[in-house]
């Protein structure tokens, strides 16, 4: 009995000694552990993809079908294809691909799914609304060091607010690809009929109210008002032209009590009173019964162009001018920008950066925005060039004053963006509507609503 027990013990000892031989010293075990840790870090960071030898180098682009400005024109991949061609002249070894046919409405979800699958395109278009979200989850690579290292790159070439759109928490995450400011559309036919000259580019709310007052009356002699001053002008327009900054950077607090807001609200009250209770709609404007309506410049380009001009706003002469300035603000336009960002997981950051630069900084490509899209180039040199002016005049068939556009671009502001911005905006909307509807003291109401909105922002997280 004893001897057999000893025998098994010996066997165990042998097994142990084999195991011990394998990793006899503590040092070997330490090294093995270190190697495993390194392995998992490499696996997680995805850096190994750089080391896998590939036949041809590959770049992928995330892009959606159709126009960013919600206007179908069928040219959308054209600029991208040209940019890829331009890129491949310099980097012929790269194969550049993109998935076509993703709708703009599905695009963000498609990107998010790609992120979950660990298969994000090397560079992708980022709508300004999604930028904060994508930067927040770390899906976008910071461009700061690339910008510093690239001597040929000049941020000053862009309109500053377009460039600022790609900035989040002090880090540049994306470059602007195309943009459009919102502007005031004027029914010139009405103004001419009323004998009112086109407002100056630096016109104010007071002038705006005066014109609205003048044009609001009955034109057919029935005594029923059928011509209005303004449609589609919301509190957002009033706030932004009066220099209101509602939210802080991260959207954690809101200041609804400032006098600028008070001014804007009373201005809105007066504007509403002018319409004598009638809710003026966009349809009224397109029927030629409204003098003013804020619109994106992209719409101006779309509907002024020959192909689409018959579809909308065809019964009258119209033009676009700057937004009227509030007493504490300026003729600010809100700028919407489509940006391009680099994936934080890209293994080809150098090439992707070059392609990104071709898309955003290459004048030849940027000029095509005026050919195949409705936005405008964020590059000052391209937008302010004579060819562009000619192109717009030719395209819209009008004597458009390019200074108006330049002024709007220079004075453009970026609406704040943070996760849950839409919902927060809804809260403010409710507040403004309720103040406008009630008859009580505006300042009191401001304080009450300030508390409500801030409570909402606090509990949201």
């Amino acid at each position, binding site marked *: 009995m004893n001897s057999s027990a000893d025998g098994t013990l010996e066997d165990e000892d042998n097994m142990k000694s084999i195991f011990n031989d394998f990793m006899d010293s503590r040092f070997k*075990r330490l090294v093995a*552990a270190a190697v*495993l840790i390194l392995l*998992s870090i490499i696996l*997680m960071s995805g850096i190994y993809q750089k080391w896998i030898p590939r036949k041809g180098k590959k770049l992928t682009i995330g892009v959606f079908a159709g126009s960013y400005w919600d206007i179908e024109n069928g040219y959308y991949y054209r600029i991208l294809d040209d940019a890829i061609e331009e890129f491949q002249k310099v980097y012929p070894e790269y194969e550049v691909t993109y998935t076509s046919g993703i709708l703009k409405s599905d695009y963000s979800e498609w990107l998010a*799914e790609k*992120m*979950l699958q*660990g298969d994000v395109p090397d560079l992708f278009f980022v709508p300004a609304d999604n930028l904060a979200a994508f930067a927040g989850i770390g899906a976008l690579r910071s461009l700061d060091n690339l910008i510093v290292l690239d001597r040929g790159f000049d941020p000053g070439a862009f309109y500053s607010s377009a460039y600022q759109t790609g900035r989040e928490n002090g880090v540049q995450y994306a470059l602007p690809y195309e943009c459009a400011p919102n502007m005031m559309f004027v029914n010139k036919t009405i103004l001419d009929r009323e004998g009112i000259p086109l407002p100056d580019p630096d016109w104010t709310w007071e002038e705006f109210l005066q014109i609205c007052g003048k044009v609001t009356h009955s034109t057919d002699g029935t005594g029923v008002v059928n011509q209005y001053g303004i449609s589609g002008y919301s509190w957002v327009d009033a706030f932004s032209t009066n220099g209101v900054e509602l939210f802080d950077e991260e959207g954690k607090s809101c200041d609804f009590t400032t006098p600028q807001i008070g001014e804007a609200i009373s201005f809105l009250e007066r504007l509403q009173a002018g319409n004598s209770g009638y809710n003026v709609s966009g349809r009224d404007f397109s029927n030629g019964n409204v003098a003013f309506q804020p619109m994106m410049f992209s719409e101006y380009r779309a509907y002024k162009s020959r192909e689409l001009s018959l579809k909308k706003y065809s019964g009258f002469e119209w033009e676009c001018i700057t937004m009227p300035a509030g007493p504490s603000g300026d003729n600010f336009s809100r700028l919407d920008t489509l940006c391009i960002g680099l994936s934080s997981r890209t293994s080809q950051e150098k090439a992707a950066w070059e392609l990104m630069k071709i898309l955003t900084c290459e004048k030849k490509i940027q000029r095509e925005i005026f050919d195949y899209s409705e936005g405008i180039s964020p590059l000052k040199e391209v937008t302010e060039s004579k060819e562009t002016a000619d192109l717009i005049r030719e395209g819209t068939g009008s004597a458009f004053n390019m200074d108006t556009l330049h002024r709007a671009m220079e004075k453009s502001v970026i609406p704040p963006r943070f*996760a849950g911005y839409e919902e927060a905006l809804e809260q403010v909307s409710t507040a403004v509507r309720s103040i406008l509807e009630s008859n009580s003291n505006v300042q009191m109401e401001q304080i009450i609503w300030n508390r409500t909105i801030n409570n909402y922002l606090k509990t949201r997280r």
Partner: protein
Amino acid sequence: MADKSLELYRDNTAEDSTSILQAPGLIFFEMKVLNLLILLFITIISVHALRGYTMDGSALHFLVGAGSVPVFSWKLPVCVSILSVSLLLLLSIPCNNHPELVGKIILEYGIALGICALTGFGYTGIVMLLLADTMRYRIDWKKRIGYVTAICIAFLAMSSNQLYNLLHVIPLSQLWAYYRQDVRSSLLSVLDMLSLLNTLVFILYMVVLTLSQTSEKERILRLNSQLQNANRKLEEYAQEQVRMTETRERNRLAREIHDTLGHSLTGIITGIEACIMLMDIAPEATKEQLRAIAQVARNGITDVRHSVNALRPDALETLDLEAAIRKLVEESESSTGVKIDLVFPEGLQDLDQDEEDVLYRIVQESITNAIRHGNATHIDVRIERVDSDLRIRIEDNGKGCDDIQSGFGLHHMQERIDMLKGTLSYSGKEGFVIEAVVPIRVVSEEES
């Protein structure tokens, strides 16, 4: 009977103590396996949830809510497994001093933190592995409490919100929010149960560890007393041995005296008594008898000398072989005036003790014989080395001996040489010649 039961009892305790000594290791192993299983469970469910978000088209909503992009699906279990294995490897490394232990714990904590971050801090019981490992070391209580406190604080820090934000961790509850409320709560309760199981195993481990450490202390105490016992016995035994040796030596002396001196004296006494009676009757015969008695007395003296010689410490014990033989030759020359020539070869330092002994005895005996029995005036001692044999030849010019009686001396010589598997030959025709051939072991020569 009493002894046997005691023995059995002892056996039992021995078995018990070994099993309780192995028990903490076993439980620790179980704990490791349990932790691996829990982590696998979490990661597999998480991967399924991530897949689900993509399928449902709520990926963007999830990502915005989560605030960071999780590790891509299949990488999650793989990375967690790899990190766990590396943690287990680190746990198996023994430490010799405090700086090593501190370094190891920090490294282990780092890995544990990584694993927890990957699994959305849904399960932090892995820190108990660190705690269990640290408790295995025999450190004094103050330092041990220090270690435990430090690990516990680090453990608590794991559930802080700041750490979540710092590491961009997606909390497990958010990751699993994909599931319906009831499914999610049952999944979380399974996780809670596993976590509780881990805690229970840890507690069991601590209890068993404490027990085993106390039992080992007892075992050491028992071993210590056993050792002291054995020591005392050894001492007694040594004293006994000394007494025994003394007695044996005394007996030997007594026998020696009895055999030699006693024998001679008896002969002498008997002879002298005979002489007393004979003296008056036959004076001639008495004379004859007295001569015989004188011879017996002389023989007796010789025997006594022999005995004394045998008792005297050997020259060999203090000198090497060559010096001892030279000393023997010199002493014999100076005490008897006999001329002795000695030829001694070079390089006989590598002989073994028994070979040296035999060689010395042969030379000594032969010289004694030549002087005593042969009345020689010249002795030739020649020691040669022939291949692997040692050849000893002692030749004298004495009267020799026609009828060689294999007496005490020669008999002894033969015996000794037989022990070394050698041969002995002698002749007494002209003087006396003794030749011995002894094969020598040449290990050291071969080695060199």
